[in-house]
């Protein structure tokens, strides 16, 4: 009797589960899907009104950190190429300024009371006729002290190495030197000047890391298990600060800092330059968003 009841219960359960499965299948077949994933492109407005400018000049950066990458040169090249293809501004091609050297010379020659840049918004352009930009005659605030390339004519100054943010801070006064930037702006027909600092430093960390492990159970089904493992990792931190200067007045109009970090397993030998570009990939859209409206792609779920 008991056996029969048990059998009856089992068959009822089977029937119920079969019914539920059938119902689910019917619902699916009849198109009762209540949500739809849809790709969207969200526009993010430009943070800076660059309409007064026709040209942009990425002059150079005070760079430091790793010796494996010339962060000044690489950043200028990358930003120029991105601006060329993804902004409406004409990119000025000129020699990259060794800004750290120039800043160091300025610190030597200029006393601490150098004119500070009042931070003013961009004003409409006067629509001056365009002239072909040249790389000559770029003079710093103390023109007699430096040659056009920014080098001291007397003796090549040994540039203090920039290793961290602290040492970077000593070079910062150059960005407030209105006269210097105004002169540079005049040389290139008052473009929007892009400059700043870039710190690209190696780092290593060790600790517990969350990972997933794939296994197969007795029935051959794939099972993904979350687990925590101890790992030694090394990588790089990229800390760029972009400063936008009005080439007509020499004043700073906007600046924004970013911080990106990548860590790789210590066995993986990732070249510094690859890591630099990987990190810049994350920074570039946000940099471009300062100057132009950017579209962010994503997906959302529409509901019925």
């Amino acid at each position: 009797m008991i056996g029969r009841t048990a059998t009856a219960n089992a068959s009822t359960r089977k029937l119920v589960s079969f019914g539920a499965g059938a119902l689910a299948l019917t619902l699916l077949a009849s198109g009762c899907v209540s949500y739809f994933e849809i790709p969207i492109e969200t526009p993010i407005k430009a943070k800076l009104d660059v309409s007064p400018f026709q040209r942009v000049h990425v002059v150079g950066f005070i760079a430091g950190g790793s010796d494996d990458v010339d962060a000044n040169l690489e950043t200028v090249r990358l930003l120029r190429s991105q601006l060329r293809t993804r902004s409406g501004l004409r990119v000025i091609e000129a020699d990259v300024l060794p800004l750290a050297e120039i800043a160091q010379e300025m610190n030597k020659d200029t006393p601490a009371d150098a004119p500070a840049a009042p931070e003013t918004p961009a004003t409409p352009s006067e629509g001056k006729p365009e002239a072909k930009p040249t790389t000559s005659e770029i003079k710093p605030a103390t023109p007699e002290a430096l040659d056009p390339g920014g080098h001291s004519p007397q003796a090549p100054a040994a540039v203090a190495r920039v290793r961290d943010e602290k040492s970077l801070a000593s070079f910062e006064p150059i960005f407030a030197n209105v006269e210097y930037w105004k002169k540079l702006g005049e040389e290139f027909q008052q473009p929007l000047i892009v400059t700043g600092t870039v710190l690209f430093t190696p780092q290593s960390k060790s600790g517990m890391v969350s990972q997933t492990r794939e296994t197969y159970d007795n029935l051959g089904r794939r099972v993904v298990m979350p687990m925590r493992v101890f790992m030694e990792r090394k990588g790089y931190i990229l800390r760029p600060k972009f400063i936008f200067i009005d080439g007509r007045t020499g004043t700073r109009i906007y600046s924004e800092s970013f911080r990106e970090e990548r860590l790789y397993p210590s066995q993986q030998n990732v070249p510094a330059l690859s890591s630099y570009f990987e990190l810049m990939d994350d920074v570039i859209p946000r940099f471009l968003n300062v100057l132009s409206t950017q579209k962010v792609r994503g997906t959302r779920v529409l509901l019925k």
Partner: protein
Amino acid sequence: MVRTRLLAAFVVMGLTAGAVPAFADARSDSKAQVDFGIKSAQKELWSEALYRWKRAVEIDPTYAAAHNNLAIAYEHNGQFDNARVAYEKALELEPNNVLIKQNYDLFREINDRANRNGER
């Protein structure tokens, strides 16, 4: 006395019975607008979709899905303030809806980025 009570009960029942179809009508009209909006959005006709979902929330302001979809259309247009209001309304109506929460989280990420300003 009994007759009065019975009469009152009938009146209440009548009102309830009348209200349910009215609500059901509003919901089904709103649903029709939502469905059409979804089809429009899938064909990338976002202006039409926006219009349909606006109509849907006008017809039935308690329809969380319509508010959610409207928020997405606003987001697509870069109207972040409107999108936030619509997402918040959708979540107010269905606080436990994981899909609305997920959409809202993604929206907030982008909204934060758009609002993060440097120094001027």
